[in-house]
């Protein structure tokens, strides 16, 4: 029994890593209507800033705050300097532009910090505690708590603030929003800035485990996109629940299905995602969009 619980707990802590990035993807989608492939690249670039600061002796928490600020500025500048040129055009072109940004940001991080994975100090104590034969690390608990706080914060931002409402309006229909006197460009900039700032939080949370390197989030991005889409792309709660589901399903399949084992366990959650999306195309928590003819 404790083995089963341990497998689930490990799955949740993996899921927390995916959820961190998935939340940022949801945020940018909510704010701009785009799926942003550069999310991982922005997060890594901001995390490297925190890394450089901790190297210089700055406490992790302060370094995190600096990274969030840097991320916000970076995201806003990228929106202003690059993405704005694509915003009125075909959304597919804009998505491809985000892929180009991902490559560019990864290269820039590597230029300054090299490709070698390097250890990153943890915000939380690097210890574990035991409950009824199950070992849980403070790091996972801390990560999950921060993610829940972020998730609630985002939910409140979009549901209960004017800014959130305006951002949703802009993402939904930029032209009508502009006609209603909403500052569309500035809202898009803020959306990208917030998403990159959140990316910095995600990066700092997962870097102690993954080691910081320019490609740190490359594979995580695949899981995070799956989680974001399964969760419904515009639902923070959905992204977190879906990420937890993917982490736990993967681990349980690896541990209990002998046919699957360690080699195929990665396929299990993705097959599940496909099946769920066939049945529920809008995702677990997504809103159904209908088009009136």
């Amino acid at each position: 029994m404790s083995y089963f619980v341990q497998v689930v707990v490990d799955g949740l802590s993996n899921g927390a890593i995916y959820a961190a990035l998935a939340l940022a993807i949801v945020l940018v989608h909510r704010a701009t209507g785009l799926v942003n492939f550069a999310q991982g690249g922005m997060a890594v670039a901001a995390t490297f800033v925190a890394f450089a600061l901790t190297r210089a002796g700055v406490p992790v928490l302060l370094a995190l705050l600096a990274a969030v600020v840097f991320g916000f500025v970076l995201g806003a500048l990228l929106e202003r300097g690059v993405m704005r040129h694509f915003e009125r055009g075909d959304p597919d072109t804009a998505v491809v532009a985000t892929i180009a940004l991902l490559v560019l940001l990864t290269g820039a991080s590597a230029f300054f910090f090299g490709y070698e994975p390097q250890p990153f100090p943890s915000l939380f104590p690097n210890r574990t505690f035991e409950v009824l034969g199950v070992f849980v690390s403070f790091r996972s608990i801390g990560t999950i708590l921060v993610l829940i706080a972020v998730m609630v914060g985002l939910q409140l931002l979009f549901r209960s603030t004017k800014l959130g409402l305006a951002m949703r309006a802009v993402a939904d229909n930029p032209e009508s929003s502009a006609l209603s006197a909403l500052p569309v460009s500035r809202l898009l900039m803020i959306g990208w800035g917030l998403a990159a700032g959140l990316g910095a939080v995600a990066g700092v949370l997962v870097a102690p485990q993954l080691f910081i390197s320019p490609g740190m989030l490359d594979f995580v991005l695949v899981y995070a996109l799956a989680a974001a889409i399964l969760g419904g792309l515009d639902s923070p709660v959905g992204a977190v629940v879906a990420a937890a589901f993917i982490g736990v399903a993967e681990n349980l399949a690896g541990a209990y299905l002998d046919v699957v084992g360690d080699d195929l366990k990665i396929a299990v959650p993705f097959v599940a995602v496909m099946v769920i999306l066939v049945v529920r195309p809008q995702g677990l928590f997504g809103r159904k969009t209908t088009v009136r003819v």
Partner: protein
Amino acid sequence: MTSTPHTVRAGALVATASIAVLLVSGCTRAESSGGLGGDGSSPGITDDSISIGISSPLSGPTAGPGSCTVAGLAAYIEAQNADGGFEFGDGNTRQVEFTYLDDVYDPARAVSNFRQLTDQGIFAYVGALGTPTNAAVMPIAEEEEVPQVLLTTGARTFSEDQEAHPWTTGFVPTYATEGRAFGELLVAADRPITVATLAQNDDFGQSYLDGFTEATEGSQVEVVASATYEPTDTTLDSQVTELAASNADVLLSAVSVTPLQVGVLTKAQSLGWLPSIFLPSNTSTPGTILQPGGAEAYPAVFTPSFSKNPNSPAFAEDEDVQAYNAAFEEYGSQIATTYTPHCTWSYAEGAVLAEAFAGMEEPTRESFMTALRSISDFQAPMLLDGITVDTTSDDEAAISTVELVRYDAGTGGFAPVDGF
């Protein structure tokens, strides 16, 4: 609209340049594919020079070890060049021209780099790192009869059948050799021991397990749990949890990815499982793996070794190490900024190359391969005492023995092992 003429002109320029490049490369290609130059010598060698090339990962996740395979070799070669050059068996002294390219650990890039190097007319391809990359290059090297030698990969493919692959040799001990050394240590303890294995799901992991199984067959050593992983996995927590349930005495962790190996070390102890640990030589560097992973918590951490650590105080007075440090500081430190043992391996490889040159009676690739395959009992610099280079066996790499060492958290280095 005004940009159109420029675009056209730029396009024409690109086209012209491409044609020029094609013509040039076409010419060198025709020359090199003949195998022999005008005076009966192979491409890439003159009376006073010889050119060699390498393609290794210099960027991407494997950049650390990859850069080291270039840096150590460059250090040896340039130091020797500065010292007058390399003496050859035909009586000439030659300067070695060394070209290196980055393949990001990507087989397709490695192949195109190899072609670029042979088009430039290299004499031999030396010391490249990586199993998939070298496996992709091997058939082409064979077909074009270009020596692809002293490779920095422990996969058996490059060493186990040298009659079938006469142009390819491995340098470092095969992973099977490393696995076998672990097995032999446990068998020598002569008591029942349980083992859990964690292996990368490819040639690397499989060779490790094969060597280990060969050594422990029919003994009291029993593998009670085993798991595999993909190098792309984000964490190995679930595998370690699964293995920890066996509570085995020993964990053989054939993991080649730095963050994952650190994750294994932290996860096992966080579950209260404290086995003795066996780590491969390529993921047991104290500064990047053992200290971040908290290796001091385990009763013992073993790893195979065959080279001296130039940063260890134990070797500070060693002449080899001093020569290495001086050469590396001057010629290698720009290429590789962080130390991995691959730096010392490739430096030793430079000495083996020099030994082959010394035995080379004619300026041909055939003569080079003959000389390279006739080295025995050669004490290359930076190898541990008792480890010698022997290229005469046709199913083993140039170095086919390893010594097990044990992590000493007090000094941050390794100490010799006298039993399990």
